[in-house]
């Protein structure tokens, strides 16, 4: 039976200490991520995302607190048996080809010998890295290397994917491809934990979103839970005369004619006036929709509401 939580942390804290200063990169982080969930880990630069991931993979030891992957303490190598990891800014030996690299990683991941060849080809194809699988990695572009890194993460057919900014350095087309791959993995019941700045991407595929700011977890919930309704209404109308359009501009922002339709945006106070105006001038109202925050707006709101608590301490003598 598989454990309930793919990732679980309790009071996870990391304090970096240099000679004169201490810096709290992650503070008292409590996360519970269920098996099969796709979770986005959002935070500004330096928020502590990579530090958290490094603790999960036992690259660095937590100053306090503990973490488990599938109920196995992170400090044990076997906790990583189910893990496929894609580092932020991945580097691999330059002289190896992606195919050679994946063969090595299949062995490291414990893929049985007779399945290696098959697994390597499947992973290369999934990550769309099969087109350049025979070229030395040192000669690949950044985006290509990123795909090799994804293939490398997938080669062991892991149940848990830990991806540190998987879309960084990708062009819009590749980013969509990356999203489609993640979507497919999600449909196969894989657990995905990805850090990102691309909030619209995250919003599309993640079941839940964790927002970290200055090392503290500020919010953790579904995108619906985190976003609020806004005081913004979008009106769509037809048969709007030029006079009516001019009048509408007094009440609304972003009035735009789109073929036969006119779009306008206004707030709760003026939405009734605008509707009345349209009625009076004989226009036909197609829809009035109250807008919801985008995840980006929710993120900014949540982060800005929080007073700065940056933890830089002088070290006690």
């Amino acid at each position, binding site marked *: 039976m598989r454990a309930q939580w793919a990732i679980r942390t309790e009071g996870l804290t990391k304090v970096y200490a240099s000679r004169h200063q201490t810096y709290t990169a992650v503070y008292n982080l409590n996360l519970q991520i269920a098996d099969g969930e796709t979770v986005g880990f959002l935070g500004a630069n330096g928020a502590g995302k990579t530090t958290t991931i*490094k603790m999960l*993979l*036992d*690259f*660095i*030891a937590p100053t306090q607190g503990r973490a488990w992957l599938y109920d196995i303490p992170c400090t044990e*190598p*076997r*906790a*990583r*048996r189910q*893990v496929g*990891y894609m*580092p932020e*800014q*991945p*580097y*691999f*030996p330059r*002289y*190896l080809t992606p195919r050679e690299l994946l*063969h*090595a*990683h299949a*062995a*490291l*991941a*414990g893929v049985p*010998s007779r399945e290696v060849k098959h697994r390597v080809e499947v992973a290369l194809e999934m990550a769309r890295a099969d087109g350049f699988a025979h070229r030395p990695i040192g000669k690949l572009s950044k985006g290509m290397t990123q795909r090799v*890194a994804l293939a*490398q993460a997938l080669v062991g057919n892991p149940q848990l994917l*830990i991806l540190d900014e998987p879309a960084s350095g990708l062009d819009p087309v590749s980013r969509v491809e990356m999203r489609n791959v993640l979507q497919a993995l999600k449909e196969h019941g894989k657990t995905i934990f990805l850090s990102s700045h691309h909030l619209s991407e995250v919003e599309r595929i993640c079941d839940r979103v964790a927002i970290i700011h200055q090392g503290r977890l500020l919010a953790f919930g579904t995108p619906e839970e985190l976003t609020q309704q806004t005081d913004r209404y979008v009106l769509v109308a037809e048969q709007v005369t030029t006079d009516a359009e001019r009048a509408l501009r007094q009440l609304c922002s972003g009035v735009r004619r789109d073929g036969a339709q006119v779009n306008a945006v206004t707030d709760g106070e003026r939405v009734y006036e605008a509707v009345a105006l349209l009625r009076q001038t004989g226009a036909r109202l197609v829809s009035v929709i109250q807008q919801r925050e985008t995840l980006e707006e929710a993120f900014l709101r949540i982060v800005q509401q929080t007073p700065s608590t940056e933890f830089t301490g002088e070290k006690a003598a």
Partner: protein
Amino acid sequence: MLRAFFALIKLSFLEAVRRQILHVMVLLSLVVIAVAGTVSFFDLGVQVKIVKDTGMVMILLAGALSVVFLLSGALFHDVEQRLLYPVLARPIPRGLYLLARYAGALGAVYLGMTLMAATLLALLWVHLHYLSTLAIVAVAFTYLEVALVGALTLLVSTFFTPAMTATLTLFLYLLGSLKMGYLHHLAERNTGFAKWAITAVSALLPNMEAFRFKDALVHDLTVPIGYLLMVAVYAVCYTAMCVAISVWRFRRREM
């Protein structure tokens, strides 16, 4: 686990055999050995002595220097260039990684040493039409010596940067070669704490002189088998100790 270990050794080996320093060392030594073996001297006895002497020195020198240069920066660069992250995210203990890193680099150096040794033994065969056991034993012990130097480099590299590691290891190696003659003498002439400190330091330093069978080979002396065994056990223990401490250091490292 074993397959993972071999995959790691292969990666480390492939990295090491590509290094220019190894190519240069091996080529240079091969040229010197070949010249010593083919240029005619006055008589065969002298020629054979010169071939043995140069050959042994070159194998040891090239082997030891290569292993120091390959291993002094290995861990540092793996961390610095972030090559380590994808590997350490695999379900393998860090110690295994370190062991494989050591074994792979050593394997590459051994490959080079084997080329030199084969050349040396072939030249001796050409001149003498037979191979003494001692010639093979002497070569085998340079392999052990290089393994020990590699382990020492690895250990030092868990404390220092590459340049510092290479310098310090070579310094320790030199001290280890002086050990018996010089340090003993020094200990005898001091008293109290100084004597104690010198004795302690000389006990910790690797005894490199123990591996030198070159003179025995050149002068056709015999070496008792018991002594050979003792030296072999010493080499294995010292090497194992260095690697064990390196593993312990590396496991606690923040990546």
